[in-house]
């Protein structure tokens, strides 16, 4: 039997040899061609420059290998303090973000389960896409010497003189939590949405109190999401420089600031490279720990829901869960005896997530009144009402050219990313790629490697290629950063396309091209537009690459805002922020609407 099958296989092979050969090669040839642009872009403008910077840190002026730069870091307590402070602040930020993100993500995932479209989700997305610069400005309004908090304290007579609330570790952590919280929430939501809502119901029919059913059933299933949110927040916090620079004092400096200083003021590439190596080393270590516990593939949410491997099995975890369940059960049961208690239990579910979202959005909204201030300084309450700052902005050639440049770069970036990213997304979702996980990791890497390192590496490369200060340089730099978002979102729309529709078209006589043109592309069109908008917004808000790659007069909008903010945060800056905010809000709204329509 076996033999018969084998010989008939061989016979068939021989007869249709040529055709089979072509078909065989098509299997790797087509995805290779589709992936090529992405590989070229990331290889040339991401892997090579980042690698180059790391290599620089390991050689001396003559090119001989040396560890001098690392010895210098280790021998200088100032640098060591900064490194430790970076890790400490990032870790605290991560912890606070996770605790604050969980109730919001839970709320959003529950809303999704009942089929209601969640407004909450939009209010998390909006700050996510609002630039960190704008969000940091808003904290200056709140925490500043003439800010909101001091105003309240003075009015209530709690203090007699304004307190110094900024330039300390607390203000930095507040700013960073505010900056990173949306990322934590958005990473958690898809994981929580995949948890079967019936599981908790099943637990309660089996006799579990609400506390127990949460801690014993729901929470363990959500741990992979908590871990990946923690990982992403931690590693992207490591490279922060905007928040500590504007909200922190000298003792709160982080590695990112140090790298900028080394490159921009001291032009010491080797030392900057060594600092970058530290960042990458810390990133890699956190990644390895994560991979050990959960497996890297759970990051992209591409595989099965809450896989069995992801179920946490740390020793002693059982005890913690047991303690948490009995404690929360006791609290819930005892509260239930009182009317107030019952009210508290139900209010917690609504008001805790709501107040966290208010914490996210309220500060940003404060920019609006400040931008209409008549005074020349940021203060609360602002002296209303004047449009002078908007007039100043619209009259300024500097702002207008910066805005123009940002729009052009944004459009070009979005176009490049859409083309390259869509091709890659097709290759990844539709073909079995040799080394698929490597390709996926490479594609996600620009999202994970601290932007500051990418930016420094590109700066070094562009300086050699004479691309510094050019639009092309900016577009290339931004494309590297925006590409992962485009690929991931196009991949997710492509997955929603029912392959049978394409099969139907093929059977009815459509070739590959016609199927793509009449069936696949129309079906994913709104997803493509949404991806385009995301790439545009990524570029429009981008500061880090712009900081290095744009020289002198040719700054983008965020670059111009940063330069101004370093001098003075003024109502004029608030006006610009509000304008930027308006553009981003409209685009996000459009993109959300489009993806909503796609789902229907």
């Amino acid at each position: 039997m076996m033999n018969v099958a084998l010989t008939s296989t061989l016979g068939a092979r021989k007869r249709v040899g040529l055709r089979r050969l072509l078909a065989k090669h098509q299997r790797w040839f087509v995805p290779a061609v589709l992936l090529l642009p992405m590989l070229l872009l990331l290889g040339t403008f991401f892997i090579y420059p980042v690698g180059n910077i790391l290599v620089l840190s390991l050689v001396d002026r003559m090119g001989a290998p040396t560890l001098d730069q690392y010895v210098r870091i280790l021998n200088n307590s100032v640098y060591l303090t900064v490194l430790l402070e970076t890790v400490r602040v990032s870790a605290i930020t991560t912890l606070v973000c996770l605790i604050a993100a969980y109730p919001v993500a839970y709320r959003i995932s529950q809303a999704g389960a009942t089929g209601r479209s969640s407004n909450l989700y939009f209010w998390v997305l909006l700050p996510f896409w609002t630039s960190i610069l704008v969000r940091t400005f808003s904290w200056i309004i709140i925490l500043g010497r003439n800010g909101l908090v001091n105003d309240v304290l003075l009015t209530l007579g709690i203090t007699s003189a304004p307190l110094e609330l900024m330039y300390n570790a607390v203000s930095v952590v507040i700013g960073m939590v505010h900056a990173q919280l949306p990322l934590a929430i958005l990473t958690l939501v898809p994981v929580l949405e995949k948890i079967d809502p019936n599981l908790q119901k099943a637990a309660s029919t089996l006799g579990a109190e609400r506390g127990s059913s949460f801690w014993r059933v729901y929470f363990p299933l959500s741990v992979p999401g908590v871990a990946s949110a923690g990982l992403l927040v931690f590693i992207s916090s490591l490279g922060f420089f905007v928040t500590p620079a504007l909200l922190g004092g000298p003792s709160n400096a982080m590695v990112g600031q140090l790298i900028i200083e080394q490159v921009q003021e001291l032009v010491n590439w080797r030392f900057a490279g060594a600092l970058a190596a530290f960042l990458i080393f810390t990133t890699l270590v956190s990644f390895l720990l994560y991979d050990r516990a959960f497996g890297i593939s759970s990051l992209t949410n591409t595989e099965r829901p809450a896989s069995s491997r992801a179920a946490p099995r740390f020793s002693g975890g059982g005890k913690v869960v047991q303690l948490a369940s009995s404690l929360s059960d006791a609290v819930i049961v005892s509260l239930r005896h009182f009317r107030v208690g019952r009210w508290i239990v139900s209010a917690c579910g609504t008001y805790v997530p709501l107040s966290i979202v208010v914490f996210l959005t309220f500060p940003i909204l404060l920019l609006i009144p400040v931008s209409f201030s008549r005074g020349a300084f940021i203060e609360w309450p602002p002296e209303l009402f004047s449009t002078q700052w908007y007039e100043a902005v619209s009259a300024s050639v500097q702002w207008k050219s910066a805005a123009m440049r940002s729009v052009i770069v944004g459009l070009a970036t979005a176009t490049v990313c859409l083309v390259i990213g869509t091709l890659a997304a097709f290759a990844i979702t539709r073909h079995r790629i040799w080394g698929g996980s490597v390709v996926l990791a490479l594609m996600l890497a620009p999202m994970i490697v601290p932007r500051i390192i990418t930016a420094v590496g590109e700066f070094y490369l562009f300086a050699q290629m004479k691309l510094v200060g050019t639009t092309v340089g900016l577009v290339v730099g931004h494309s590297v950063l925006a590409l992962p978002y485009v690929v991931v979102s196009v991949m997710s729309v492509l997955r929603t396309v029912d392959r049978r529709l394409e099969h139907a078209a093929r059977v009815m006589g459509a070739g590959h091209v016609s199927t793509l043109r009449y069936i696949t592309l129309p079906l994913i069109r709104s997803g493509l537009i949404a991806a385009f908008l995301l790439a545009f917004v990524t570029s429009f808000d981008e500061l880090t690459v712009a900081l290095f790659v744009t020289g002198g007069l040719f700054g983008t909008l965020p670059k111009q805002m940063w330069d101004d903010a370093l001098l003075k945060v003024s109502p004029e800056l608030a006006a610009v922020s509000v304008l930027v905010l308006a553009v981003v809000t409209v685009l996000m709204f459009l993109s959300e609407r489009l993806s909503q329509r796609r789902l229907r």
Partner: protein
Amino acid sequence: MGDRIVLNMTDVVTAGPSLKLEARSLTKRYGDAVALQDATLSISEGEFLTLLGPSGSGKTTLLSIIAGLTEPSSGELWIAGVRSTALPPNKRDIGMVFQNYALFPHMTVRENVEFPLRMRRKSASHIQREVDQALEMVHLSQFGERLPIQLSGGQQQRVALARAIVYKPSIILMDEPLGALDKKLREHMQSEIRRIHRKIGTTVVYVTHDQDEAMALSDRICLMNNAQIEQIGTPDELYFSPATQFAANFLGESNFLDVVVDVIGERHAQVRDGNGSVYNVKAQPKGLRKDERRILTVRPEMCTLSPSDATGDCVRGTVEDIMMLGALTKVLVRLDSGELFTVSNFTQQARSLEVGIAVHVGWNPDSATLLEK
């Protein structure tokens, strides 16, 4: 009357003047898993053939290979005398109705039906005429401008049908096309499909796991199990002369008894079971040997129940359960040997039965068959 037609079809098949589709030892493996093993099958022009089997039996794989959506690991496929194993699906001149219809959600009903004609670059007037005709045939002339989402399940089903027939493909494949419909609508659509098949006379390969549907629609049924073809034949042949225990059980219900062949006569053979009871059965076309172990099978509706002292072949037992199913009543009888026997009788005749009474189960020797052990 129905039998006559089926018999005529069989003659055509055996004569086989115009072979439409031929599968020659088609096999599909996914790694170590075998989805289809050595499937050999020929279908003649105009025939309605059903691939019937439980899920995972390989029927959808076979259909998908015929459509060109799956490439076989080995074996060959011939369409109208042309070797088509590696032909891309758009060159096969095949129509297909998908499991969940696969209507293009962004196109109107009319655009959906036009699609295959546009792909063939037909003239506008030709398209207009053919689409009108196809929509007419499925009674959807009024619905051309609607989007698929605005139609009911049954209407969507008919759009899918219109789209598959509008370009007059030489073969139409249907993959569980009625699976998503409720029982009443399914029966209605079965007769619609029969009507359309009679009208256009195209070869149809139909996939279903529903045995009633297969019997109602097919000229021939290809019964599949475990990635292999179990038996091919007219509904009549499959029902009354099942080749295997699986076939006997999948199409309708059957009762089984382990027996040993005793006497081989001209018209009947005599067998006995473990208790020494003797039964007569129809003589088999294939050779029987004395003392051979076989399985005697008899359909529940061929059995009769009598209180006691029945003549002819019978087994004794006790009524264990009675289920009234409308016109028929199903009686479960626990045999003295411990096995369970199912008997289906008209409800009118089963009125007097009660759980717990002793009965004889009898049958006509001509309705009992022997299966290979």
